[in-house]
């Protein structure tokens, strides 16, 4: 479904992503793990079209989207969930969800999907008229996820959904990610919490200072000594 080939990305003079290649198959959960500054989020931003790469190719659903603008990529069903603090915190929960459906015109479908989002995240329904800035960190994370689901994604990119959340909440969020995947959405998950990420993923890539240093099935990597030492506290 998604192939990234030999990607090189610069932030000004900083070479943030160095020759990264990865593949996400239909229906899979693939995770990119690694510490802060390893280039995980930069990779996601590049796939979403927010940053243009210096070299490399991004193929989605058989189409080269390397030069496609960000809003067109969303229309194609490749949707990123940014970190929770990127909720539109000056707008209500409902307005945030409406913006998630920005690319759609089918009013009935939008209403139905809104109900589905509220079923997944009952807390959002309770707070539907509240301004997003007044929600807790976990609720804002739920909101940005729900907002992305409103666009009917085929491939969902998640940027550190566990960041800053209490362990119990992290579990809840990951259960929902699994549920979204079970309902047919392919997922590319960027995480610092390697433990949780490997527990739900099919495949994983380990990034270090902008490079892929290891990859394999999630089970292989979870068992690997190097990964345990560096990321799983083992």
């Amino acid at each position: 479904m998604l192939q990234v080939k030999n990607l090189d990305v610069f932030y000004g003079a900083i070479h943030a992503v160095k020759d990264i290649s990865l593949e996400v198959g239909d229906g899979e959960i693939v995770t990119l793990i690694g510490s802060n500054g390893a280039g995980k989020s930069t990779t996601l931003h590049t796939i979403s079209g927010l940053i243009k790469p210096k070299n490399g190719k991004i193929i989605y659903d058989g189409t080269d989207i390397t030069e496609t603008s960000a809003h067109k990529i969303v229309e194609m069903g490749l949707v990123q969930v940014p970190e929770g603090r990127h909720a539109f915190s000056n707008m209500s929960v409902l307005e945030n969800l409406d913006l998630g459906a920005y690319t759609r015109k089918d009013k009935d479908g939008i209403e139905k999907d809104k109900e589905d989002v509220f079923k997944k995240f009952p807390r959002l329904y309770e707070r539907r008229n509240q301004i997003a800035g007044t929600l807790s960190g976990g609720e804002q994370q739920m909101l940005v996820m729900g907002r992305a689901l409103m666009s009917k994604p085929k491939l969902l990119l998640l940027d550190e959904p566990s960041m800053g959340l209490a362990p119990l909440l992290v579990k809840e969020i990951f259960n929902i990610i699994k549920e979204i995947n079970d309902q047919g959405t392919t997922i590319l998950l960027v995480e610092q919490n390697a433990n949780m990420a490997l527990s739900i993923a099919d495949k994983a890539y380990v990034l270090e200072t902008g490079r892929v240093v290891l990859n394999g099935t999630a089970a292989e990597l979870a068992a690997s000594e190097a990964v345990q030492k560096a990321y799983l506290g083992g």
Partner: protein
Amino acid sequence: MNMGSFTQQFLQQIINGLSLGSIYSLIALGYTMIYGIIKLINFAHGDIYMLGAFIGFVATTKFQMSFLPALILAMVGAGLAGIIIERIAYRPMRNAPRIAVLITAIGVSFFLEYTMILIATPQPRTFPAVFSPTVYHFAGLVVNNQQILILVSALLLMAGLTYIVNHTKAGQAMRAVSFDPDAARLMGINIDRIISMTFALGSALAAAAGVLVGIYYNSIDPLMGTMPGLKAFIAAVVGGIGILPGAMMGGLIMGLVEAMVSGFFSSTFRDAAAFAILIIILLYKPSGLLGKNVKEKV
């Protein structure tokens, strides 16, 4: 001055101030919308107001249009000019340092002013009286139909803008882009198109102000935008730049203060009063009356 005539004078200046202030509000809205969406103080905005006045002038003199068609033509023409200016001058500078874009805006301002001088000569033109002035007296106060026209048109336009921004999909997208451009792009919003739309709306409002002023003062010239542009900028800062109700309120405050100063002291002081307000606001509430103190995000 006895108490009765003081009250009367005061009320009279409120009437004058409101109609002048609603002009400032219309121009200030454009400043604040454009700042809100691309963080640029568009110093060419006052010249868009001038451009609107000239389009209105040509429409009423050359094409004998009546008020409403001339107003609409001026708004559409200036809106297009706003889109073109953004496309040619500001979009290539999207990732440039803010000071470079600011200097570009000053360049655009001079370009518009002196191009207009080239086309229309620096001579002031007499704006035709689209409405024969009628003066109403009641309770010792003087109101003319042009003041009413200005106030009513300005209020209708502001209500229209508020509706667009708060209740339409495009308006919602505008607020999203202004709040977090990257997150907006991840919603599938074409931010270039939303920025164009913002320039079009802001410029159209300034053009409306230009036509209304032309009708009110009967005189327009290529440099007419400088002072009102600066004052509307102050109005936007007073209300809190980037905040729409703030711009409306700031404009009315500026108009009222100017009218009071002209009425009770001397009209030569009114520009000084405008800048005094700016200094006071910057000293005591730099984020503006409706602004919140936010730290710059790093």
